[in-house]
Structure formats: structure tokens, C-alpha cells
């Protein structure tokens, strides 16, 4: 029973943090939706860890808790892959901006120089 209390507290804390971040507009909507869905899945599981036992036996996993652990790992892997992809795209964008700024500053200096003459 003790474990259930622990997982329930963590589940609710997660829900509160996600909600608070969304409320303060610190999370982009696409992530907010993702994490909102995660919270909705996590909280019932935290209260009733045996909830997935039936599903687990269907796919051949010994207990529901193991299934949750496995799915959690898969989810985190996909998520970190997605974040790497996201970071690559952002780097490309900042690179383009940096080049654009350098070009503009060069242009401005050239114009200023030719005005002086």
C-alpha cells in the first residue's frame, strides 16, 4: 500500500507541474498536449498499479507494472529522438539567422563607407 501512496504523490505532482507550466504559457501547445496526455495516463496508473495486469497478460508480460516500465522506456526513447530532431532543426534555423545578420551588417557597413566617399 505504501508504494501506491508514493506513486500517487508523484503522479499528482507531475499533473500539477504540467498544468502550472501550461497555465504560465511556458510550454508550447504541441508539447502541452503531449504532456497532458502523459499525465492523464500516469495518474490512474499511480492510484491503481494493477490496472494494466489484464492487458499485460494478453501481450505476454508477467505483470502490469513491467508493461508500464517497458512502455515508459519506449516512450522516453522516442521522445529524446524527437527532441534531437527538434534541436537539429533549431540549430539550422539559428545558423541561417546568424548568416543573415552577418550579411546585413556587411551590407550596412558597405553602404556607410560608400556614403562617406
Amino acid at each position: 500500500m505504501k508504494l501506491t501512496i508514493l506513486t500517487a504523490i508523484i503522479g499528482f505532482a507531475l499533473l500539477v507541474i504540467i498544468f502550472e507550466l501550461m497555465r504560465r504559457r511556458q510550454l508550447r501547445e504541441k508539447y502541452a498536449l503531449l504532456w497532458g496526455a502523459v499525465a492523464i495516463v500516469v495518474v490512474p496508473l499511480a492510484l491503481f498499479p494493477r490496472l494494466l495486469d489484464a492487458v499485460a497478460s494478453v501481450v505476454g508480460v508477467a505483470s502490469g507494472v513491467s508493461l508500464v516500465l517497458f512502455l515508459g522506456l519506449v516512450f522516453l526513447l522516442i521522445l529524446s529522438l524527437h527532441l534531437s530532431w527538434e534541436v537539429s532543426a533549431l540549430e539550422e534555423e539559428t545558423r541561417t539567422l546568424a548568416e543573415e545578420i552577418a550579411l546585413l551588417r556587411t551590407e550596412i557597413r558597405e553602404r556607410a563607407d560608400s556614403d562617406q566617399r
Partner: protein
Amino acid sequence: MINGRRVLIVIPAWNEEACIADVVREVRGELPGVGVLVVDDGSTDHTAAIAGEAGATVARLPYNLGVGGAMRLGYRYGYEHGYDVVVKVDADGQHDPRYVPKLVDALDEADFIIGARFAGEGDYTVKGPRKWAMRMLSIVLSRLGRTNLTDTTSGFVAANRRTIELLAQWYPVEYLGDTIEVLVRLMRNGYKVRQVPVTMRARQAGIPSHSPIKSTIYLGRAFFILALSMVRR
């Protein structure tokens, strides 16, 4: 102007205050009438100011992007200012500007020219994994380009207007990507790549690495980038 073509020399430089002035002056002395653009890749020393005093146009990146970022900026500048040819020259003084007219002339027959060591001129030698990497690249890229290329990682290259247009939009930022991937992309899209033999000089500053571990990593990266660029869209 070289042979009626507007030529821009692009010199990517990162913390090169020791030799950038000499390189710029030499280029301007040997090649009067060409544009000289130094791309300062986020240097923390006085590279930009010194290059400007030596008479180059300086484009200054707000932070270090690597050679790829600096070169795409160079090609974009060349494209927007209507240059017919962009020649890349290294800031460490190893590329002799007297070869530039030779590279530019060779563009009559091709879209992209590599100034190549090992092609009969000069006495540049490498050993070990680095040599194998260069050998592998030469064989694969020569076959892909249906020509004989002996020095595919040379940084002394010239591009015509058509190639400038492509490289101004697309230029890989990773190390080695900027040489190997560019060649593969150009060849796969039907651009004609040829080489011209050149002699390279000892660098004025900095020393090339000869550690076996670094050479092995170099071989691995070269292979990886080559394989990747072959399957990329």
C-alpha cells in the same frame, strides 16, 4: 576581373589574426580587381579588424558556426553581389593565390574545380589511416564524377555561377561534410567537377595533426559522411 569574369575570393577565418593580414595582402597584390571577402567565424581575437585594415570586406558571424556556416555565407554574398566565380582560399596561407587564374580558367570546362595536391605538382605526403581515408575518397568520388580526382578534401576550390547558386542555399555545416558531401551532391545532380594540380605551401600558423588516433577517427568520419551522403535525398 579574371578573363572577363567577376571573381570573389572567400577566406573563412577563425582566430587567424597571426596570418590573415598577409593572406589578404597577398591575394590583393597577386589578383588586382577581384573581390576579397573574409568571413570571420566568430573569432575572439582581432581577425575581423586586421582583415579589414588589410583591405578585405569582412562579414562577421555573431558566433562560431564552423567552416560550413562561414562558406555558405561566402557563397550567399557572392550570389547576391552577382559574382561569376567564388574561389575559397584558406586563411592559414597554404593556398597560393597565383593558382587562382588557373582554377578560374578551368571553369570553362566544368562547374566546380578542386585545386589538388598529389596531382603531379608539389611534394605533399600523408601516411596511415589518413592516407587510406583520402585514397578511399579519391576512388569513390572519381568513379562517381567520372573523372580522376586525387585530392578530394582540398579546401582550395572554385565554383561557377550555377554552383554558387546551389551552395548559397545548401551547404553542410559539419566538418568534412563541407568537402565530401558537397562533392557528392554536386556530382549526383549533374554538376561537372574537375581538378587542377596545385602546390600547397606550409601553413604560416598552426600545425596539422599527425596523431594515429585522430587519423583513425578521421577515416571513420570520412567513411560515415561518404556513406550518408550517397543515400541522402
